[in-house]
């Protein structure tokens, strides 16, 4: 019975609801114990798998204890940042705290939400507050993870750059 349940879950692209499972099992008297087996599976999982309750029913997923291993299979090779992302990061690093319109002013083009999201996902930038001007724009700063990644003790260690600074 457990094998049958596992076979269904493992071959299914979507989560399976109790109703769906019932429609598969219920006219077969040999499968009477399926609900007890489902509950057991839900409680203890099976090997590297755990049964999770998600929208639309249950699905098997890999237990997080295998994350380190899975990362070796799935994580793609590091890629360079796009020029747009790099510029945005540079403006925030050197001009912080800085608003998005100010970043756009420095770069001369609009900054996509996607870029800001990407840098936030990395944990490199964060909103530190809001400027008290109309619209109260968010003020962006770099994080301690940013400093760690680039082996900087503090922002003061950012190399000084010469240029015509007139803002």
């Amino acid at each position, binding site marked *: 019975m457990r094998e049958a349940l596992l076979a269904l879950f493992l071959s299914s692209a979507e989560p399976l609801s109790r109703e769906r499972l019932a429609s598969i099992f219920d006219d077969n008297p040999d499968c009477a114990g399926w609900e007890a087996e489902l509950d057991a599976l839900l409680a203890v999982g099976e090997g590297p798998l755990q049964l999770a309750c998600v929208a639309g029913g249950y699905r098997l997923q890999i237990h997080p204890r295998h994350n380190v291993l899975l990362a070796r299979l*799935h994580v*793609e090779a590091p890629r360079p940042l796009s020029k747009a992302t790099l510029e945005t990061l540079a403006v925030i690093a050197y001009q912080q705290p800085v608003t998005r319109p100010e970043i756009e002013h420095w770069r001369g083009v609009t900054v996509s939400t996607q870029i800001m999201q990407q840098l936030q996902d990395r944990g490199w930038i964060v909103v530190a507050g809001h400027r008290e001007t109309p619209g109260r724009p968010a003020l962006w700063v770099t994080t301690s993870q940013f400093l760690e990644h680039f082996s900087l003790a503090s922002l003061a260690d950012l190399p000084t750059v*010469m240029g015509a*600074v007139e803002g």
Partner: protein
Amino acid sequence: MSNAISEVSPSAALIQVHGQPLETLPDGLFIPPDALELLLDSFSGPLELLLWLIRRNRMDIRDIPVAEVTRQYLHYLHEARRRNLELAAEYLLMAAWLAEIKARMLLPVPPVTDDEDFDPRLELARRLEALAIVQWQAAVLHTLPQAGRDFWTIYPAPHPDLPLAPPLVTLADIVNVWQALLLRPTRKPPSAHTLTHPHVGLRQRMAELLWHCHREPRPWSFVEILPPAADRLALAVSLLALLELLRQQALALVEDAEGRWRVAVIDAEDCRVGF
């Protein structure tokens, strides 16, 4: 697996009429009513019809009795025409080719060549053999176990979010990019939004809105204060006018008991919404 394949004998049995194999088509070329259309439909082209005829007559591909095959082939074409079935032009082309081969078979073999390539049937035999091979190979593919038909693979199990690989970026990259930005000659001035079409009557619409809301000191729903039967431009101007009045704090947005936004003239400080 070898068992499964030996069972495959791509033959006329592939052609069925009303679920019955058409191997039993009587000799003498009697064609049951309605069968011809189904029969011809099941062939993808004249070559396949020809191959089927040869197999049905148990003839040798490498030694085709061209006269007999041509007679039978033309019979099917005539039948099809008699029953007003549409046949692709390739069927007539094949008929012409068969007739040509038949004619050349009647000519004496020139003494200068004893090359077996001279056999005018050779090209036809080659093409029929190629088709026979393809039919056999297609039958083999059909018998191979197929995912979702004969077996099911696992659908990859999801896993928790994995840590992202850090991108390839160095401090020097950031410094260089910043340097380049600093040296960039011209920068766009901070953008400001201005209305470029005064003639659409923003001021007037603002005045109308204010007047409308002042008539009765109660919160108004958006629908109530929009101009009746407004077009897109009028709606856009109304919205701009409303936003401008909100910005100037001439009007305020309030939330009613059901949590819907309403517009009201500012008088009660307690229900004002920070904007």
